């Protein structure tokens, strides 16, 4: 197993009329070949912006990477010569976007856009590229692919546009795929097919996958590792089977408790109190402190580092053992049983 992508201490800022927004404020994560890293977290916490920085498609200006390293096979993309960088980002990594409609060109047919991947990157002839496009549409299970290749994006339903996006991303068989909510618009049977498809490609090509999603069910199904984000930072990382049973950060705990469950029908859902912070006014200390049930004075002044709570597990909470073990004393770190 080798490290495919390693993001280290990444910072991204947006200059807006209201001042500087620190959208990504020191994010580090790594993905191994053949593995799936799920990135979860609050809406607006910087999950997509981090991905955009990796892919080199940051909206800039106003966005700017102010610090950090993005290493692909150990080589920093941020310092690499432009030409090499483009080659990596064009063919060896690909992204599936959250908003399929704005990622597709509205005035070109879907078949044409898919065929273009092969003609521009592989020099395939028009005719062969066309056939490959239809084949890809078939592979992501778009019904009547041949007939529909000439249709434009707006003629497809939300879910089918998403499948077109996936077809586009896997066309060149990349080593790394970043999928930003790839199945949000899909029904669960198609979602299951798409996730199976991604898993199959992953096995076949030892592809690394970063899966950004809000669906804790999908994460439980497919992820190897999890990174949870809040207000531009990673607040918890863990292997998937550990985090559901015992979260080590109060934000993660709140998220897990917010999932609608049968016994909540007819009652209010649990929701973390308060509002997510504006990226212009992140609270001092721990960014989660105004909403945290465990917060104490220290949390309002001292920013927690990522504590190692067990082998391969980190949490950015001063009182992580309390969260993990539900006690107020500072018990022993867990992890002996791994």
């Amino acid at each position: 197993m080798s490290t495919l992508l390693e993001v280290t201490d990444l910072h991204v800022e947006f200059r807006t009329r209201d001042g500087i927004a620190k959208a990504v404020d020191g994010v580090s994560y790594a993905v191994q070949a053949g593995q799936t890293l799920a990135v979860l977290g609050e809406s607006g916490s910087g999950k997509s912006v981090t991905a955009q920085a990796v892919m080199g498609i940051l909206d800039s200006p106003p966005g700017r990477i102010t610090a950090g390293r993005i290493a692909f096979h150990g080589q920093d993309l941020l310092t690499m010569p432009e030409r090499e960088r483009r080659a990596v980002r064009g063919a060896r990594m690909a992204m599936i976007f959250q908003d399929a409609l704005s990622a597709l060109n509205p005035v070109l047919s879907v078949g044409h856009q898919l065929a273009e991947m092969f003609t521009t990157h592989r020099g395939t002839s028009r005719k062969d590229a066309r056939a490959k496009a239809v084949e890809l549409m078939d592979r992501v299970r778009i019904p009547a692919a041949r007939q529909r290749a000439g249709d434009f994006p707006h003629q497809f339903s939300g879910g089918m546009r998403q499948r077109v996006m996936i077809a586009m991303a896997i066309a060149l068989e990349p080593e790394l795929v970043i999928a930003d909510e790839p199945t949000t618009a899909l029904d669960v049977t198609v979602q299951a097919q798409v996730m199976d498809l991604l898993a199959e490609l992953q096995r076949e090509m030892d592809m690394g996958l970063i899966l950004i999603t809000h669906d804790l069910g999908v994460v439980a199904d497919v992820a190897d590792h999890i990174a949870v984000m809040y207000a531009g930072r990673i607040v918890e990382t863990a292997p998937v089977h550990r985090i559901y049973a015992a979260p080590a950060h109060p934000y993660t705990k709140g998220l897990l408790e917010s999932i609608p469950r049968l016994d909540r029908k007819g009652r209010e859902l649990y929701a973390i109190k308060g509002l997510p912070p504006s990226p212009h006014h992140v609270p001092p200390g721990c960014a989660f402190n105004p909403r945290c049930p465990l917060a104490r004075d220290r949390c309002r002044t001292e920013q927690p580092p990522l504590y190692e709570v067990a082998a391969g597990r980190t949490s950015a909470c001063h009182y992580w053992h309390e969260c993990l073990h539900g006690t107020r004393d500072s018990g022993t770190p867990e992890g002996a049983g791994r």
Partner: protein
Amino acid sequence: MSHPTPAPQVDGSPPPSHEPVLEVRGLVKHFPLTQGIVFRRQIGAVKAVDGVDFRLHRGETLGIVGESGCGKSTVARLLMNLERPTAGQVLYKGEDITRLSGRALKAVRRNIQMVFQDPYTSLNPRMTVGDIIGEPFEIHPEVAPKGDRARRVRELLDVVGLSPEYINRYPHQFSGGQRQRIGIARGLALNPEIIICDEPVSALDVSVQAQVINLMERLQAEFGLAYLFIAHDLSVVRHISDRVAVMYLGRVVELGDDREIYEHATHPYTQALLSAVPVPDPAARADRDRIILTGDVPSPAAVPSGCRFRTRCFKARDRCAREEPLLTVPEPFRDRSTPAGHPSACLFAAERGTGEGNGASST
């Protein structure tokens, strides 16, 4: 082109209130399918919605689930009168709104609002958030006098959990989830009676999702709002809905209350759908009893004969190709009080794990 059968009296359990605020009868929407670049000629039709009937009562939430592309958003657009139906009626308090225009239409529109699926394309990028949320007041000035609008917009932002300091920002400066909340605030602006929600919480993290759902339920209890709630997340739909309609390829194939659908589904498509729901528990990964649907998803331009689900159905037999199942309470369950006795458009309707496809009822 076959015509949809006239609506049989179908409705799940007893409604929460008497009068439907919205009733849909035999709704059909076909989009022409054309070929050729210079001379475009019609070679068929995409049967996006192909005979849908349901009722929505005051204070009720009707959930709609179903395959991507089965026509959910098209139904929503038809209800909003954004699209003309090929056939059928949409009755708002007994009046067919598909025939209205001008002032009468405008008056109805105030009472039926929509929250869209796509928070990216549904917000005008050149308008500030304040203008977007306040825009409905321009069209319906009677709801909020000019001097009061800024205050109302701030209030709405607060209601959906966004800081009122965002009022002068543009949509691209927000995350997906934040944009979705802007759409909801806008939908609430005119105090409508009915809100059609097309995947209103899909883009949100589960905690914000919980806040929005709690908010929607609170507003419903307070104002008697009726919701048509379209979503792919079956546990969210279960939580919020009084009744659920399951759609497949342009039709409702099963309709019932939460227990009837989630615990006593009798249609094979519903059963497959429920079996595919991912469980938020990694330990359950291995032992899921998933029904894998085989066969190609048929195109809505070439709907199979007989039962439209038969090409992927694990129970299908010869009869399914010849006979079209109607959305009624299946024979074996009639005249018996069982939660399996709700409308289901399957010739061999049976609960999962009971009588294999012979229409036998559970024992």
